[in-house]
């Protein structure tokens, strides 16, 4: 059986803002059909890393290759094959959900715009929302519209920055289930930035724990929990965030792998 192709290859990525190292020597890969989670507290470098993958931010050093293209030179060759969603970015509030989706469908070069929106409305349960102004929607409804925008072009790489932030548990659960189904059906690679441990445990095949811009540990959620001798990923995260090594019975170094 062939190995899944590598969609994301990040090598020794760095981003400095003056003397502050927001991202400091980060390397990882994401293969097709897999979800890698960047887990870390505020200011750990998650959003900065995702912004560099999107090309919204230029790295200070290191290399990012997406679909085997160096994005420093070939950014526009890959942007149509990926998409992203973030609570820090909005869709225009004065436009209806349908109008927003039409605009982005055209930006991504989708041929059957109306058909694709109809399809997205069905799977994301947007039928009653499409003709309402985006600004009048609840947080959960906006998230579903933003997700529809992020999936319009059937991305092979989906970058999600805290996709369930500010959602109630029921809506958050629904979004996670949808993402799992999408990945299963499309074989997409997902890079997820979150500080929601439950979400990461449920969705991620691999977790990269970031602290002060560096990867301080990584593994599958189960592997991390086992190595730290803890019950949940949240406890592992707190150990790392507070520099505790109480559960280090299985030999985690807690340093950059």
């Amino acid at each position: 059986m062939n190995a899944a192709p590598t969609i994301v290859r990040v090598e020794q990525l760095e981003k400095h803002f003056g003397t502050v190292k927001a991202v400091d020597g980060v390397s990882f890969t994401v293969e097709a059909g897999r979800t890698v989670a960047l887990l870390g507290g505020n200011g750990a470098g998650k959003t900065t890393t995702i912004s560099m993958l999107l090309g919204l931010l230029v790295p200070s050093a290191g290399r990012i290759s997406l679909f085997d293209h160096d994005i420093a030179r070939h950014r526009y060759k890959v942007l149509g094959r990926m998409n992203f969603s973030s609570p820090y970015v909005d869709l225009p509030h004065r436009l209806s959900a349908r109008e927003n989706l039409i605009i982005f469908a055209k930006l991504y070069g989708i041929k059957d715009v109306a058909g694709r929106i109809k399809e997205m409305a069905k799977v994301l349960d947007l039928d009653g929302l499409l003709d309402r102004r985006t600004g009048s929607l609840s947080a959960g409804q906006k998230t579903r519209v933003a997700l529809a925008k992020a999936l319009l072009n059937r991305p092979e790489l989906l970058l999600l920055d805290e996709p369930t932030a500010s959602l109630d548990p029921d809506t958050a659960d629904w979004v996670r289930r949808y993402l799992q189904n999408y990945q299963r059906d499309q074989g997409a690679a997902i890079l997820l930035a979150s500080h929601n441990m439950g979400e990461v445990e449920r969705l991620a095949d691999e977790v990269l724990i970031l602290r002060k811009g560096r990867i301080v540990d990584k593994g599958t959620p189960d592997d991390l929990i086992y190595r730290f001798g803890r019950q949940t990923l949240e406890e592992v995260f707190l150990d790392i965030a507070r520099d505790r090594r109480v559960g280090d019975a299985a030999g985690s170094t807690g340093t950059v792998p």
Partner: protein
Amino acid sequence: MTSFSFNRVGAICQRHFYVLRRSWPRLVEMAYWPTMQMVIWGFLSQFLASNSSYIAGAFGVLISGVMLWDVLFRGQLGFSLSFIEELWSRNLANLYCSPLTPLEHIVALVAMSFVRAVIGVVPAMLLAIPFYDFSIFTLGVPLLAFFFNLLFMGCALGLMVTAMILRYGLAAENMAWFLVFFLAPFSCAYYPMTSLPGWAQVFALALPSTHVFEGMRAVLFHGTFLWHHFFLATGLNAFLCLIGIGAYLVSFARARRMGLLLQVGE
């Protein structure tokens, strides 16, 4: 580099049409100020026509200046505001992580600048006909040359304003409102360039708008289209547009280095 796509340009224009379509107060506001200017300056022109040999020489000289000045102002504002709307709606990152290129975005903003200028100025131009029995359309083909030169100058200024906003955030938003007025005294919309002191004439000659308004007066007073003013205006505009595009691309590159595309705001 991806190939230029008019579909993506159209998508950005469509985004702004959606906003305009359902916002009648905006449409009214866009036409309101040029119309009020036309009314005030029209009556003043009527008064001066019987008291001033300059105005009497060509009744439409002031009112044409007013209306064409608004092409420049509305053109610049239309470009800048279409960009600023993306910041207000925190949509810039969505746009720039799609395949939309900065050049396509600029072309879309130029198209929106044209649409907004037409919405703003054409009603005033039409109303001047019943109000004063004066039609700026009698300028004929030269009117198109004047209109598009002023529109492109407005876009070049809009590019510089958006470059400043990308650099300094929405704190630079006020530039969109006052930059063009800084150039007003030197553009000579209402008086001949020879009215300016010598040092100011040097600066005025470097502005495309000055050549447009000198050309406009030549048509109104003498029925002559002065080609050298047209070529100078067009050449200066090409130069200004290149500077504007350069400034935008430099600010865009800097915004990508500094992470401002996600954060740009107040």
